[in-house]
């Protein structure tokens, strides 16, 4: 058992969890227990790969061979295993949160919710462990389909309209740009595998028939093809998907969907093109401006957005652009920053969504304008909000500091002082969209609010939800001290160490 079967099991465990959820539909407590057990097992399986990968091992598992050289394969490498760990651990946390949220909110069709939730995680883990472009693509598309029932959970016309935008953009970009880029890669190199150093280099030169311009075009196709990364102009699905219940938004916007988008871009940068190749041909030269523009524009929109969840959605778009920017800069610091930011932003952003959901459940408030006095009624929730905000902004003593730090260093290493400025400006804008809700909440009681919710801690979130959001907030702060471990882990990637 050299770890290769573990890869398969890590994908199967959530599927089995989904099946168990389906079977236990009538018994909610057992059903949620099944979700939690499956999440724990998945986490355990992925975690068991960690020592092997740290020692430089790269276990692989062949699922299917469709055509010669054209197969579904899983493998373990630092980026993917890290992403798998984040996805499975946050699945556990989100289920805990959802127990509180879904029951307090009296949502219907909870079985369907937990079932597709588990399937979404299965596809995410599969994509994280993909050993070639085809496998990644298959799981990437499956995730879109698995999350559609979650987005339209409400079942109304508004939900369906949001769901349609969601599907159209995500499937549209991947079916056109991504597939085209994949076919192009195959016809140029005859391979789709993820290999250290990429497919396009032969010694110090590019392989025959490939020009720097071609690499840049191909890279752009991949970046826009990964529509889940929400690079403008393909970002609209994310705010549209805000019709979903909050645990779904938390999953979509912190963990599974968007992170898979940026993970895809990072993985392709590192293992299809190779950081060295990208840097050599300056493939990200133009795209980094697209990323920078997305970063700033989304941040400005977020500041102006009154609906709390939509504000968080635009904040996510902005923060994802950091990771895309990291891939564009393509050097050891920026890739390190990109990898770290996936993890750090996951914990911070899920906390923010948990808080927004808690406020909705307890006080039925959805806009920033209504938040006055919430800090008094829900002090723990808003405290967690504050910690997570610091983390997203990138203040020291939270994990977010490190990813911004390394990214800034990466911008300087790449000789892009302008991008350095963009990164700093982005953090300033993040203050602008994350701190006002907190300030307003702590400013004092709303004179118009009923007395019952003016008391300190009067309307705290459901217990399960509270536990989940405190935990994730604590992790996003604690990651500040885990920087050496994270960077040691990511240095297993060729070209960073």
């Amino acid at each position, binding site marked *: 058992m050299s770890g290769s079967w573990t890869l398969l099991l890590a994908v199967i465990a959530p599927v089995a969890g989904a099946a168990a959820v389906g079977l236990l539909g009538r018994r909610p407590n057992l059903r949620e227990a099944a979700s939690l057990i499956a999440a724990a097992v998945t986490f355990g399986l992925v975690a068991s790969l960690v020592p092997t990968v740290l020692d430089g091992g790269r276990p692989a598992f062949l699922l*299917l061979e*469709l055509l010669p050289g054209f197969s579904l394969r899983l493998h373990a490498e630092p980026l993917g295993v890290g992403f798998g760990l984040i996805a499975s651990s946050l699945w556990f946390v989100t289920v805990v949160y959802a127990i509180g949220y879904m029951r307090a909110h009296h949502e219907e069709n909870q079985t369907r919710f937990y079932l597709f939730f588990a399937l979404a995680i299965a596809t995410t883990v599969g994509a994280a462990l993909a050993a070639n472009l085809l496998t990644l693509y298959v799981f990437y598309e499956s995730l879109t389909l698995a999350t559609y029932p979650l987005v339209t959970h409400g079942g109304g016309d508004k939900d369906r309209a949001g769901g349609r935008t969601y599907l159209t953009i995500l499937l549209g970009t991947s*079916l056109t740009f991504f597939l085209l880029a994949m*076919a192009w890669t*195959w016809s140029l190199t005859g391979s789709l595998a993820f290999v250290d150093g990429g497919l396009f280099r032969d010694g110090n030169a590019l392989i025959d028939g490939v020009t720097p311009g071609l690499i840049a075009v191909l890279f752009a196709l991949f970046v826009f093809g990964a529509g889940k990364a929400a690079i403008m102009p393909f970002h609209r699905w994310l705010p549209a998907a805000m019709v979903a219940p909050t645990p779904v938004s938390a999953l979509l916007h912190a963990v599974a969907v968007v992170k898979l988008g940026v993970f895809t871009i990072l993985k392709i940068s590192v293992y299809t093109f190779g950081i060295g190749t990208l840097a050599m041909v300056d493939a990200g030269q133009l795209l980094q401006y697209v990323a920078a523009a997305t970063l700033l524009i989304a941040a400005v929109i977020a500041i102006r957005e009154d609906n709390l969840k939509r504000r968080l959605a635009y904040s996510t778009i902005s923060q994802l652009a950091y990771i895309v920017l990291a891939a564009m800069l393509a050097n050891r610091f920026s890739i390190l920053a990109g990898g770290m930011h996936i993890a750090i932003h996951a914990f911070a952003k899920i906390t923010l969504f948990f808080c927004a959901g808690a406020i909705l459940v307890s006080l039925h408030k959805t806009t920033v304008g209504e938040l006055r006095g919430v800090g008094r009624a829900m002090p723990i929730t808003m405290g967690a909000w504050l910690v997570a905000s610091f983390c997203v902004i990138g203040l020291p003593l939270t994990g977010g500091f490190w990813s911004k730090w390394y990214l800034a260093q990466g911008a300087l290493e790449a000789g892009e002082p302008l991008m350095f400025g963009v990164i700093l400006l982005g953090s300033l804008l993040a203050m602008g969209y994350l701190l006002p809700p907190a300030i307003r909440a702590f400013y004092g009681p709303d004179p118009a609010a009923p007395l019952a919710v003016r008391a300190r801690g009067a309307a705290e979130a459901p217990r399960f939800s509270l536990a989940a959001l405190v935990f994730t907030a604590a992790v996003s702060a604690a990651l500040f001290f885990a920087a050496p471990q994270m960077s040691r882990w990511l240095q297993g990637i060729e070209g960073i160490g």
Partner: protein
Amino acid sequence: MIASHLPVLQVVMSLVAAPLCMVLHRGRPAWLLSVAVSWASLACAVALLLQVIDDGAVTYAFGGWAAPVGIEYRIDILNGFVLLIIAAISAVVVPYSLRSAADEIAPERLWLFYAVLNLLLAGLFGIAITGDLFNVFVFLEISSLASYALVSLGRDRRALTAAFRYLILGTLGATFILIGIGLLYAATGTLNMADIAVRVQGQLDSRTILAAFAFLTVGISLKAALFPLHSWLPGAYAYAPSAVTALLAATATKVAIYLLLRMVFLFGPDFIYEELPLSEVIVTLALLGVLSGSAAALLQTDVKRLLAYSSVAHVGYMLLGIGLGGMLGLGGGIVHLFNHAMAKGAVFLAVGCIVLRVGSSELASLQGIGRRMPWTMAAFVIAAFSLIGVPLTAGFIGKWYLVLAAMERGWWWVAAALLVAGALSVLYMWRVVEQAYFHEPHPANADAAEAPLSMLVPLWVLAAASVYFGIDTSLNAGLAARAAAVVLGIAP
């Protein structure tokens, strides 16, 4: 003894079954006979294909008259494969038709329905199997006349006008083909296709040959519903009885595409791809067909019509393969021929199940049908995935080859257009899926139950095939590659 007569049995069984159905004069016995014949035909096609794989091309001289003088049946990998597709689809659709046809066709006409169905199959088998060009015309007309009659049996009165329009255009197409055959005979003095392929070389620049080529191409394109000659197809598919639609969609246009492939073989790939700008013309028309078909499918409010327009698009895919040429392009076109037959057959069968239970194929009446008929809709979704070209379904393989073929020629815009069409196909298929699964059930299907087993089993056979051949591609992709080699004259 029987083995040496397999080629003729392939056609004669269905041809004889037709008058026998008339003699039986009742629906059920006629159906039983047709099932037996369709399964025997499948066995026959499999045996023939195995023979061809082992020993190379099989020939059968009629009445003992040797080839150039007498009529000859000649089976190589290409038409062996096409025969297998037709036989397999008919072996699935004919059993299915028991309940479906009984529901949609008046009982006193049922035995006639089966008689004509057998004629259609005889015609299709004949086109695919014969090595004689005039024979192609005769069989083409047998199958066409049968299909006009079958389309007209639909219960909506619009089936009649659809059948009439199909007849007018189909006859024009067939007559064009006849002119082409005449000119080709005038130039070469033979009707045997293998013979023509030899004699035509050396006089390829003569006007007679060029005119023959032009007439044949236009005529066959009409039969294949190549854009912009596709106007007969949506109406014919939409109003024909469900089983007929499935059979026609999966086999009739495929046979026309086979003829086009045979033309490449007749005139030689050098002539088609080097001397004429045909590649560009076909690719452009095919892409227009793919895009306009997909776009039109988006606008339909009837599932059968929607799928019919999707057929226009998919015919475009196959022609694109022919237009792109080369092992990848032709291989992709041929493998898509196979995959599309399975998947489109399956979706039309699924719609047939819905028509049986709901009585309508209007998109709106499908609301919430996913809960009423879970097995039917699940099969529909699987087959729809294959039509879209999702990885791990058969449809992906063909599309992948086509995109690679476009890349190989450096026509990245073709590849891009193909993928855009793929995205469009997601949209129109999604409309059906959304109605079926994400709406409350419509009153029209309030008492709709799951389809009977006699329809579900054939449906699932095709749906399962759509997945199986996407995972184990050795049969379809392997044979398609060998068939492409035959077309290109690389292999005998």
